[in-house]
């Protein structure tokens, strides 16, 4: 029986396994994380490639979201960028569990909006900020 060429997308989508989705999603997440860290450091793509001992083309392929990154490659990226790219849920729980929250009480005019209150705070940890703002006495 001749297959319907126009229905090829449905046939191929039916073949997609959960591991395909996990592979691509995590791959793209890693790529996005590397990109964020690169920008934070103020490096160009060329500089990142040089630090990794690779060509720009090789780094581009590594971070395309489709390359099968090895743990070794990720470790090298983490070492050069000086920051985690992958953190397991267990590790994340240990790190955030030890974060201390400090409650401050401030008094502001009743007309102030929540956003105006927020503008007075500089807080790196978003979770911590939310915790603080909920303790503001108006």
């Amino acid at each position: 029986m001749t297959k319907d060429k126009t229905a090829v997308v449905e046939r191929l989508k039916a073949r997609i396994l959960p591991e395909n989705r996990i592979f691509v999603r995590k791959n793209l997440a890693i790529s996005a994380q590397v990109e964020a860290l690169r920008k934070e450091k103020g490096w160009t793509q060329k500089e990142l490639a040089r630090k990794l001992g690779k060509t720009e083309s090789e780094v581009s392929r590594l971070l395309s979201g489709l390359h099968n990154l090895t743990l070794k490659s990720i470790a090298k990226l983490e070492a050069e960028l000086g920051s985690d790219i992958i953190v397991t849920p267990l590790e994340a729980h240990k790190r955030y569990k030890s974060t201390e929250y400090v409650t401050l009480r401030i008094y502001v005019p009743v007309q102030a909006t929540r956003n105006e209150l927020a503008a007075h705070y500089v807080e790196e940890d978003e979770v911590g900020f939310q915790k603080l703002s909920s303790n503001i006495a108006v």
Partner: protein
Amino acid sequence: MPFEPNLTGEAYFYERSINVLKCKFTCKISLNVNIFVKLIRLTEFQFRKVKYFTVKFEENDVNEFFDFLNRMEDVSEISEDLANMLVWIEEIGENYGAIKNRYFRNESIRADVQALPPPRKQMEAMEIQVENIRLYCMVANEHVVFLFNGGIKTTNNAKDCPNVGKYIDQANRIVLGIDEMLKTREIAWTEDQTDIEFDEDLEIEL
């Protein structure tokens, strides 16, 4: 006297005092046949951040992207890679956007190191690469991508590969055609530049 035409088709007449030799000209005639493609919106690939399109040659029964998928479908060795590619197209479309230099490559398309990069505003063909699979495309902006054709690369230099080389040339021609249509606004951007509008009968000349 014998007649000897040269490669340009000119013939030398050797005229004797009495008889004029008739010579037969043979020459090569090259026909430049204009090829037209229709622009197709891939309805299964319209996502939050990217809208995907393709083209269809008049004489073919399916569009170029479907032709690629149909040919790759039955190659068992690349089944997983093909699945990953489809998921990737979806993820880029839904969550990331078509960021040209991060997710799309053109090194093998510009493999000729003598070639200068195109002028800044000129579009160029890009490629999506999964292992040995190559799918050629055009990234008009972060929200609009045209998917063309491709195959399984079997040589170091993609341009020399019998499977994909012709699709690089084809992609480059289609890109020029689409770029021209964008400039003349026969393919028009929406106000927020996240989509394009065009007449469904629009034909792009290659």
